[in-house]
């Protein structure tokens, strides 16, 4: 895709930061507010699509390396499975960190309360792991599908020039 005009690029530069921060906020507050790893990861991955549309593929592929996102996705999935398997002494996916003190271990008062971010045990850990996985996975899908469009555009005898100007 060709880069869009300078007005669009400036606005997208500003709002991409807000989108990234909002996605990370949804992931980190997954155990307190609606949302979680899947939703927040989708928001952060939307930022990649946003930058791809505004800045064009050449500039995006210069800094968005597929290897980085692949590592992100694998790390997230492995962290999720490990957090599930560490509670195997009781059952699979047992929340062994909740209420123990320490990392994510604060007890929560019963009833309505204002929310403690250092609570919920493995739930917040799994939210972050799933968030990493969804960020990596959806960004990889966007990047590779964009590369796939380029692949067929340069083929012999193909009049397809994509849907950009």
């Amino acid at each position: 895709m060709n880069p869009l005009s300078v007005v669009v690029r400036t606005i997208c530069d500003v709002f991409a930061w807000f989108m990234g921060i909002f996605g990370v906020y949804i992931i980190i507050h997954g155990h307190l507010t609606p949302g979680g790893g899947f939703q927040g990861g989708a928001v952060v991955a939307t930022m990649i699509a946003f930058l791809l549309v505004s800045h064009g593929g050449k500039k995006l592929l210069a800094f968005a390396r597929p290897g980085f996102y692949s590592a992100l996705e694998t790390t997230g999935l492995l962290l999720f499975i490990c957090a599930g398997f560490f509670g195997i002494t009781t059952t699979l996916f047992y929340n062994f960190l909740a209420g123990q003190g320490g990392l994510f271990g604060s007890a929560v008062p019963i009833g309505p309360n204002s929310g403690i971010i250092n609570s919920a045990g493995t739930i917040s850990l799994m939210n972050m792991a799933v968030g990493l996985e969804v960020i990596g996975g959806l960004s990889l899908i966007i990047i590779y599908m964009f590369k796939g469009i380029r692949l067929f555009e340069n083929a012999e005898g193909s009049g397809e020039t994509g849907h950009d100007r």
Partner: protein
Amino acid sequence: MKKRALFMLAILVVAGTFWGALDRIHLFGDPVRAPMDDYYLNNAQQERSVNNVVTAIVFDYRGFDTLGEAAVLFTAVCSVLALFRKGREGQ
């Protein structure tokens, strides 16, 4: 003509079944059997120290489901990579 009659009969059967099911449905927010829901609502904060009961169900009580969801996403990414990978000529 016969085909159309058969079609109308099929529509009637489906609509009747659907109407019957809707007639017997419980009111919104008033489930027929609620012990499981009550258990989650009463004990999620104490057992798992989490305010968001939906997250407690998704990531803790039913964590195995979420593992499947993550695996579905992983499989989707793998298939997209296999489809759009740049191969050599004739491969």
